[in-house]
């Protein structure tokens, strides 16, 4: 029973392309997050959203944007992909009424920019 689904496991894109990473959750969670995971750096927060149409910058938002038109879907957009955006991207969600509940993560999208 998959609860947070990321549309692609692996993506290869060219430098300068506009890239869309999609995330869908079926748990009716209000909060959604995008992290990138790099060896030795752990998970770093790119953007998050506590409600539909709402977005907040995380720690490393440069070069990224997001869209949340529906509660269950949170998209990460790389406006012009660069090689330093090659990484594992993880989407997560959490409920707003159980803030000590923790996150549910997707399996990740490994993006390679060539």
């Amino acid at each position, binding site marked *: 029973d998959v609860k947070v689904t990321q549309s692609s496991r692996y993506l290869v894109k060219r430098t300068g392309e506009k890239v869309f990473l999609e995330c869908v959750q079926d748990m009716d969670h209000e909060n959604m997050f995008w992290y990138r995971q790099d060896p*030795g750096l*752990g998970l770093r927060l790119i953007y998050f959203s506590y409600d539909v149409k709402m977005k907040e910058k995380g720690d490393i938002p440069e070069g990224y944007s997001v869209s949340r038109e529906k509660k269950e879907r949170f998209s990460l957009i790389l406006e012009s992909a660069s090689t330093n955006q090659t990484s594992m991207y993880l989407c997560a969600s959490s409920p*707003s009424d159980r803030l000590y509940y*923790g996150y549910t*993560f997707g399996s990740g999208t490994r993006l390679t920019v060539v």
Partner: protein
Amino acid sequence: QQQVKQSPQSLIVQKGGISIINCAYENTAFDYFPWYQQFPGKGPALLIAIRPDVSEKKEGRFTISFNKSAKQFSLHIMDSQPGDSATYFCAASIVTGGGNKLTFGTGTQLKVEL
């Protein structure tokens, strides 16, 4: 500036031994400290969590020890098994009315040998 520092980066433990992973934080406003376990090809999954009003929490073979005055917390895995081989992340967050934005450590790759 890294707000949650995790050590060691990698750890090898013999089957049946105790695995210990340490984290230190800087922001005294943090009030939720979860640990996540990640297997290759999967997203991180919540393992155990603690709030700063208790000094220890135990769930099966996994124990979190929390030292508020030292701003440190650690994960102990008793009777470590080969199936525990994974990457472990500590995290911390400030829970607000809107949500809980997690800040992660850099991760510890644990290998349990037979």
